[in-house]
């Protein structure tokens, strides 16, 4: 429908093709279809990219269950939930952004893109707080790591009061908590990297949206970026329970 409208408005201003239609496409609809499909295929590669990490996580969690349980207790469910909420909200604002672009409402588009941008930054900020806490508590594997909190959970009263059942781990098992944090940092880091890329593209889009690029031109770019943003959200939807929630009980 929009694209029908688009095509019409394009024809009005430009008898042959709308200006945003690339020369090798026969119609705007074909162009939209092709780029949209390409975006989906790109998301497939992203699924498989994270697939390797998920596989590693599942195997290691099976092997070193006690270590993974106690290590995951170091994560703050409060911040995790907050971040999930932030990301879901940003997904919503992004969806609304796409809608505004489709409806040709420039003001709303800018508002929603701006909100998405802001929420993305909030997510990264919270992630930064969590990472900083890991740094403080010597839970950054390979660089700054100590297994003290796991060989002697009572030394960490804050976590211990929440999880009084946590027993001291044997040295060999306590060493495996590092594996949890390897994967924690690899997965959240890779996710955050995708967020950073997304935020950069959002900034670019906001600048372009101010120049009416989407409300006059075609919205494909906004829609495709929306797909990317929602995909990053979905990754987090799985990371959140896997890393934070499923190991609350032994």
């Amino acid at each position, binding site marked *: 429908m929009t694209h029908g409208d688009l095509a019409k408005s394009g024809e009005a201003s430009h008898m042959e093709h709308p200006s945003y239609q690339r020369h090798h496409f026969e119609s705007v609809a074909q162009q939209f279809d092709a780029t949209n499909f390409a975006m989906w295929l790109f998301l497939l590669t992203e699924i498989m990219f994270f697939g390797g990490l998920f596989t590693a996580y599942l195997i290691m969690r099976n092997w*070193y269950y*006690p270590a993974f349980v106690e290590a995951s207790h170091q994560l703050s469910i409060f911040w995790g939930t907050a971040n999930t909420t932030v990301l879901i909200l940003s997904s919503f604002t992004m969806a609304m952004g796409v809608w505004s672009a489709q409806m040709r409402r420039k003001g709303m588009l800018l508002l929603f893109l701006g909100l998405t941008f802001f929420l993305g930054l909030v997510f990264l900020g919270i992630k930064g707080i969590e990472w900083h806490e890991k740094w403080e508590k010597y839970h950054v594997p390979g660089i700054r790591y100590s297994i003290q909190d796991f060989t002697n959970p009572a030394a960490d009263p804050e976590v211990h009061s929440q999880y009084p059942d946590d027993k001291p*781990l*044997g*040295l*060999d*098992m306590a*060493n495996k908590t590092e594996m949890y944090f390897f994967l924690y940092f690899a997965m959240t880091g890779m996710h955050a990297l995708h967020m950073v890329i997304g935020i950069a593209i959002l900034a670019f889009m906001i600048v372009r949206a101010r120049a009416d690029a989407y409300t006059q031109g075609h919205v494909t770019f906004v829609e495709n970026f929306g797909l990317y943003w929602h995909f990053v959200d979905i990754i987090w939807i799985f990371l959140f329970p896997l890393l934070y929630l499923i190991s609350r009980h032994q």
Partner: protein
Amino acid sequence: MNYISPVLWQFIEKWLTHFPLFPPEASKIAPEADALFFFMVLVSLVGLTLVILLVAGFSLLYHRKRNPQATQIEGSTLLEATWTIIPLGLFLIMFVWGSLLYFRIYTPPANAMNIYVVGKQWMWKAEHPGGQHEIDALHVPTGRAVQLTLISQDVFHSFSIPAFRVKREAIPGRYTTVWFEATRPGTYHLFCTQYCGTNHSQMIGDIVVMTPDDFKKWLDSSTSGSSLAQNGERLFASLSCNACHNSTPEARGPNLAGVYGSRVTLASGQSVTVDEAFLRQAILNPSEHVTQGYAPIMPTYQGQISEDGVIALVEYIKNLNSDYRLQQTLNTTQLPPDNTGKPAQAGGSAAPGEVKQ
């Protein structure tokens, strides 16, 4: 030929008379493996000949000169079904046959003689139960099943004996096994076939197959004084394992006598059979292998014992058949003279279903 190049001629003659085209068959499994191999060669030759005949025949018959006008044919479901089903059937035969062979090669018989092999950059070290150890060589008798328990100290290696048609990777951190029964005395190649760094191609050795009598002589002449189990016993004492594993009622660790081969229940509720792999893991990663009813207090020995040391300990615990032997360890710092392989008959005193933490 002789005219053209005497050098070439000599070369070919020498090759035909001196160099093999097929490896010797020196183990019981080798003829079986070769039977499948030749079956596959046969099928391949028939298949290849068929393709060549079809292509060459059609090329001649339907050359542009003979057949200026092509006849358009859509296809033939019948023909296509034929060349789907026949290869599929043949491949499935090879699959079943190959799998049977695979299981045979990787399932050691119960009475096999066990030799430990440690791979490290870039040498093989074999340890016989009698304490004889050899570098880049392995002496085995004919007519007796030999099981190799392989492990690597660093990277992946692969223990390959082409004449026996067996091969198995030595993996860091885990035991793998393979077995064979040599049939023909002689010296055969031992290769490391998994690329393992700079001197990969130097990680080779000899497999010396001997008659049982010669083998016994060799064993006697190369003994190092104490058996593998005795080395383990010494290590057991020096690491103070007996402080907890002492089979007394108030012991903090489970009784180890007779534990090998039994089933134990772990703290996690899981029930496992105690084998070499389990013993190794229990020494290096004890808290994952705590026996039910015991506290997880055993320290890890990861990084403190070499793979050879672990092997000696495992061999010691394997041969620990009764409390009698354990008491001996406790009571003497001096090694008891030659008491290996003296199976205690009353092995039942150790309660099965318990192992160390």
